[in-house]
């Protein structure tokens, strides 16, 4: 049974900066409160403070946290250790990083119970197996003997929930537990989480940036921004009638509306044609096939000015497709044609003009920009390399590019480390645009961004297409993102192209069953969506 959590004027600071500013909240026993906000809003900091923990360099500077009768912030180190993992437990975003890869899973799952002495080891193991069953894990009796790398990401996340629940905690903190998962996996995990939370009547804090996920899990939602509470209310009220301006913008961004393609769309001219494309890694066998095949027999036509979305789960080969088109991975069979001419498979064989006309933009702007080069230099390089611009002309073009992606010109002197995630992604786009490309390969460009920031980048992508007439191959795991900017959607699974759906037919079905499954798995922004899904398909095993 859960405990009451009362937080009064909690403040957390790092140096002079205030991360959480006089936050007060109350959670009744057995209720689920969601903390929602963009990155840097202080939601994880708040969640950690509930356990009396502040990350390195941060300090809980004021206020109080009460869990049941315990005043958490007045506890000493020893008492805190007794509290954590026992009365309050924590489920982190990346289960893969939270398990020790060198020990069997069961050992680690029963550890909290053994350490806190709540159960003898034998009983703890039986309880763990019961929890595995409750969390709908396959082979509950034996899965514990496996090592973390032998189970999937979604399973590992549920195993971590079992670890958190084994001591029957009064409060569970879930910190973005499904963010790193594919949509279809996410549904299974959400379903399992919700069931255990409901049945055990634990008090839970659910930290997330995804309103649609939160709508399925939480009784109340608290919207955070810059460490301050913007709005709090029941889930129904907040979704139906958000009062705060920021909440409204979050809601608007949560479901990106289709961006109009304008007049540039789909001329008759085919820009990129892929025929029977296969690719993979490792040495080639006698039949000419690589040891591991990632892509199999892909056929695709992309018209000038068109945007084609490629969706699929991780491991479906969608990123490999972009790498093949970019020339980074030569295909084992099949051919590519670009603008009517054969595109050489190898990077080295391509002319500089071919290279210029196809640009690739990667997911994580953190690793896509060289941290030791200024923005000016990052943008200058393609201009110098492809077009030989220098001096005043170069500087003017860099300013134009910054204007184009709506960044202030003053950023030119900065290093990437001094930019926000959204700004970095804009620089990333600007670098591709500097080459004046015909085709931009976008690999998960909004996945690492907050909803509101991601929506703004999508707007920019659509606008650039309207104004410059560039074509996109837009790779994403998020169906809504793809729908928002693309004319056609290609669905991939296990390296094969399963279906191709045109924009006009998005809402008209029936489509390929896997497309339908993907579409169904995307959480909808209303309460009860998960319940309906349960009713529609009651017996679901991961």
């Amino acid at each position, binding site marked *: 049974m859960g405990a009451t959590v009362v937080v009064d004027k909690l403040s957390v600071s790092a140096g002079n900066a205030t991360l959480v500013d006089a936050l007060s909240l109350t959670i009744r026993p057995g209720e689920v409160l969601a903390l929602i906000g963009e990155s840097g809003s202080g939601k994880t900091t708040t969640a950690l403070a509930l356990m009396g923990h502040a990350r390195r*360099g941060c300090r809980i500077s004021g206020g109080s946290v009460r869990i049941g009768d315990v005043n958490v912030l007045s506890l000493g180190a020893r008492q805190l250790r007794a509290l954590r993992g026992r009365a309050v437990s924590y489920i982190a975003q990346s289960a893969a990083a939270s398990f020790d890869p060198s020990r069997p899973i069961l050992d680690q799952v029963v550890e909290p119970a053994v350490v806190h002495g709540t159960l003898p080891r034998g009983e703890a193991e039986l309880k763990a197996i019961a929890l595995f069953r409750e969390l709908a894990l396959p082979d509950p009796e034996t899965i514990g003997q496996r090592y973390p790398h032998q189970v999937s990401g979604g399973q590992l996340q549920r195993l971590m929930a079992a670890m958190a629940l084994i001591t029957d905690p009064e409060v569970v903190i879930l910190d973005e537990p499904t963010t790193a998962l594919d949509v279809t996996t996410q549904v299974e995990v959400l379903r399992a989480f919700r069931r255990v939370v409901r049945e055990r009547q634990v008090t839970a804090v659910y930290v997330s940036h995804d309103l649609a996920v939160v709508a399925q899990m939480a009784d109340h939602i608290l919207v955070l921004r810059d460490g301050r509470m913007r709005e709090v209310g029941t889930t129904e009220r907040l979704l139906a009638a958000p009062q705060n301006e920021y909440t409204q913008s979050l809601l608007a961004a949560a479901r990106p509306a289709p961006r109009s393609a304008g007049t540039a769309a789909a001329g008759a001219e085919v820009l990129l044609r892929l025929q029977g494309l296969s690719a993979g890694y490792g040495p080639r066998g006698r039949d000419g096939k690589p040891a591991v095949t990632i892509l199999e027999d892909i056929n695709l036509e992309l018209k000038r000015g068109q945007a084609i979305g490629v969706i699929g789960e991780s491991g479906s080969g969608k990123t490999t497709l972009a790498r093949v088109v*970019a*020339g*980074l991975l030569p295909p084992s069979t099949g051919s590519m044609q670009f603008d009517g001419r054969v595109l050489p498979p190898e*990077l080295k064989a*391509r002319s*500089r003009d071919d*290279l210029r006309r196809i*640009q*690739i933009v*990667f*997911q*994580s702007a*953190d*690793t*896509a*920009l*060289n*941290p*030791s*080069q*200024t923005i*000016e*230099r990052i943008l*200058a*390089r*393609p201009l*110098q*390399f*492809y077009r*030989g611009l*220098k*001096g005043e002309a*170069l*500087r003017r073009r860099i300013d134009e590019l910054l204007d184009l992606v709506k960044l202030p010109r003053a950023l030119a*002197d900065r290093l990437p*480390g001094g930019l926000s995630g959204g700004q970095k992604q804009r620089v990333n786009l600007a*670098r591709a645009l500097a*080459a004046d490309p015909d085709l931009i390969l976008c690999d998960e460009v909004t996945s690492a961004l907050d909803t509101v920031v991601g929506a703004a980048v999508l707007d920019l992508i659509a606008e650039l297409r309207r104004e410059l007439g560039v074509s996109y191959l837009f790779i994403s795991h998020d169906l809504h993102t793809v729908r928002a900017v693309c004319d056609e959607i290609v669905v991939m699974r296990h390296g094969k192209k399963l279906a191709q759906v045109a924009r006009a037919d998005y809402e008209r079905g029936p489509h390929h069953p896997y497309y339908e499954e993907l579409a169904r798995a995307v959480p909808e922004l209303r309460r009860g969506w998960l319940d309906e899904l349960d009713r529609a398909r009651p017996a679901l095993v991961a």
Partner: protein
Amino acid sequence: MTTLIHGGIVERPAMRRWGTRLAHFGITGWLGLAVIAFWAAAAAFGPALLSQSGDAGGADVFAPISAAHWFGTDYLGRDMLARVIEGARYTVGVAFFATLLASGSGTLLALLAAASERWIDGTLSRVLDTLTAIPSKMFALLIVAGFGSSIPVLVVTAAVIYLPGSYRMARALAVNINALDYVTVARARGEGTGYVMLQEILPNITGPMLADFGLRFVYVVLLLASLSFLGLGIQPPEADWGSLVRENIETLASGGAAVIAPSIAIASLTIAVNLVIDNLPGRVARERGGR
């Protein structure tokens, strides 16, 4: 291509960054810089300023610290202060150039290995691994026995001995950077191996490589000192700090200044180099968690 990079827009921020780097130095960093500057000045101008040459003997043997002999005198009655200052030229100069050679060529080879095809990487790595397998003192003894002891031979020997270590370090760093998206973007743009090596990878491994430089500098000073100690380093009557320690080892039991002064000189230089490197702000920022 390189000419284009120097179009005038690149140097400016780089200069400014070096300016801010120095401004962020902590007290320990400045202290280290001061000690290094002192020894560098001693190596360059010291002998000219001395009132007595280190070769002039005649005073008491192993005399204690006095107004006439600030560091006492050595086993032939020579002034230790003069000996240490004259020795700075060999220790600071030889060690510095040997380390520069080892770290510089090691880093370049590592960049080449990381940025080019697999067979180049394999060949380079195996060849340098073989070199690592030879015990370093033995190798130095062999070379000195074969070619005689002269300053160029010492520099090259020390450089060859410490090159594989610095290559391994740089390669491990460079291989990680090479797998990052911005390097992939540069390749997809059509950039050559040279550009990827020097513009994309090198700037991002300089911080750790400077730390490695400091460590290796210490090793080289110690190697030269031990060679001198064996009588195979700098030849008398010239002496680096290592030989000074060896010459005066007899007085160790009585705690004479003649053996302590050169030891302190070695310690102060190596600690100073590491203090400076620890204070490079790139490293401080990395340790705070930013990249």
